[in-house]
């Protein structure tokens, strides 16, 4: 273990109900998530002196943290709003950990919430991409699924991945969601259901794509020393890494290998572990194809082997690498990367009931986004392992 390993812990997690919550603003969802995380930790909002936020996607705000912090009555010592697509949550957690270790705040709330399902429509999702930098919209290349489809098609072609291999990711994660009381989609999904779902952008079907959620989520961090006085079993951050392939799909390598290879290497090195030491993985599963590529990037399987690994049950609760144990972005909820971290914490606390991975002591979370550009990795350890 090296550097920041073990110095900072997750002391609280909280979220709202997930699903269709008409009439509830993004701010209200964020505030409720903070309230729940603070209560989970046995702390009060007055203890929280660091605020780390991502703006709701449906209303991108440059100074989002100032607006949320005011509504929470906070006068924080450290404030940061970031935007890295699906890597934002883990990047914010890493920044908060550094701030805590530097003594610039003591308890940090990392928050996101959006009413993406019933609120303001965000069908283009392009305002963030910059003037003149996303001209392919005029060709009808709009939205995450169409862009991901370009990577997934190439990945399929290079490795001969089958529809059923993609589908096994969706079906497995749905089974995990069915064991998760708060998950948004709990009805069983069969392979036939998957194959019958409509095309969104070939080779991606509806069930290859992340769901849309009204919901908010919060992760609360403190120094590991401070964590000993809080209500929950400690879960330590033992590894952190980031890497970004900012050329995205303009670089021909980024269709079948994401920045996760570099990011995970950094995180494993800090944690002093390798992929074989991981008990639970919570992948940023914005698409089934993203999970397969990340499995390879993180060294869990060799290049081109992820499809067979998933189809043979490798990702299931009894498999070699139990993954997205609450259903992930594909079935539990889409609160960007927050759901992944919260579920990893719960697995390491041993509080997951029917979906608990027995003896889970080390978990890895991935965050991935910006149309194949951004990536961040977090390695967490339960009290026994740390």
């Amino acid at each position, binding site marked *: 273990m090296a550097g920041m390993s073990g110095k900072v812990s997750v002391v609280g997690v909280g979220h709202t109900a997930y699903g269709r919550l008409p009439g509830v603003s993004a701010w209200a969802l964020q505030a409720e998530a903070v309230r729940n995380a603070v209560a989970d930790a046995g702390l009060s909002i007055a203890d929280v002196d660091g605020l780390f936020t991502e703006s709701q996607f449906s209303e991108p705000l440059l100074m989002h943290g100032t607006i949320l912090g005011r509504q929470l009555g906070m006068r924080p010592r450290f404030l940061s709003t970031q935007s890295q697509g699906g890597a934002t949550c883990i990047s914010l957690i890493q920044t908060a950990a550094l701030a805590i270790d530097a003594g610039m705040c003591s308890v940090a709330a990392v928050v996101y919430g959006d009413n993406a399902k019933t609120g303001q429509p965000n069908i283009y999702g392009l305002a963030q991409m910059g003037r*003149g930098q996303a001209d392919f919209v005029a060709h*009808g290349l709009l939205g995450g699924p169409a862009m991901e489809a370009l990577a997934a098609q*190439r990945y399929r072609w290079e490795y001969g991945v089958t529809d059923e291999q993609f589908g096994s990711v969706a079906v497995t994660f749905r089974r995990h969601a069915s064991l998760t009381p708060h998950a948004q989609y709990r009805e069983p999904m069969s392979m036939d259901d998957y194959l019958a779902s409509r095309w969104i952008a070939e080779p991606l079907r509806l069930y290859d794509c992340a769901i849309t959620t009204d919901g908010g989520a919060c992760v609360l961090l403190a120094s590991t020393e401070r964590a000993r006085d809080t209500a929950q079993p400690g879960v330590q951050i033992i590894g952190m890494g980031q890497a970004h392939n900012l050329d995205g799909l303009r670089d021909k390598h980024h269709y079948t290998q994401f920045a996760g290879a570099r990011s995970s290497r950094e995180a494993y090195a800090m944690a002093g572990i390798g992929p074989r030491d991981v008990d639970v993985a919570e992948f940023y599963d914005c698409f089934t194809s993203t999970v397969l590529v990340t499995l390879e990037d993180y060294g869990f399987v060799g290049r081109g082997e992820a499809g067979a690994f998933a189809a043979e049950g490798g990702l299931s609760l009894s498999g070699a690498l139990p993954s997205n144990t609450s259903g992930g972005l594909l079935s539990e909820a889409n609160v960007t990367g927050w759901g992944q971290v919260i579920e990893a914490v719960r697995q390491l606390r041993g509080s997951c009931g029917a979906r608990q991975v027995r003896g889970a002591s080390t978990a890895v979370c991935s965050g991935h986004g910006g149309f194949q550009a951004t990536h961040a990795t977090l390695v967490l350890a339960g009290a026994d392992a740390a």
Partner: protein
Amino acid sequence: MSQWEIPKPQPVMSEETAPFWEGTAKGELRVQRCAACGSLQLPASAVCSSCLSSDIAWIQVSGHGAVFSFTVVHHAFHPAFASEVPYVVADIELDEGPVLTASIVDVDHAEVKIGMEVEARFRRLDEEYVLCVFIPRGSKLPEGAPGDSGTESKQTGGK
């Protein structure tokens, strides 16, 4: 375009991208070339992304390339495309190197494959913009295809 139609999202003519769109309006596909290190790049950047030189110019390229990857889009992510789905969008590896994202038109979707050779055509999007699209290389220039407002031109031509 009739007035009740929803307009398609436009590209944006910025300081960096204006020469690209001036090119397509003349039936030319252009990429940026760095005078300092010779790198070719798309999309337009303020500097050379290889050496950070500001001494970059636009050059015309052949308009020939191959499909690096593609998707058949079935879901209309924008209402303006509701009447066009399904359609093909591809990442085209130009013979000169850069990758360009663009439609492949006038093709049976089942015939689009990774590695398929394509060539540029130019089609008017609206009053302001002409898009560079691609067709399978060697296929005949279609005449009066639906949705074509008669402004199509070959790379060598120009309007």
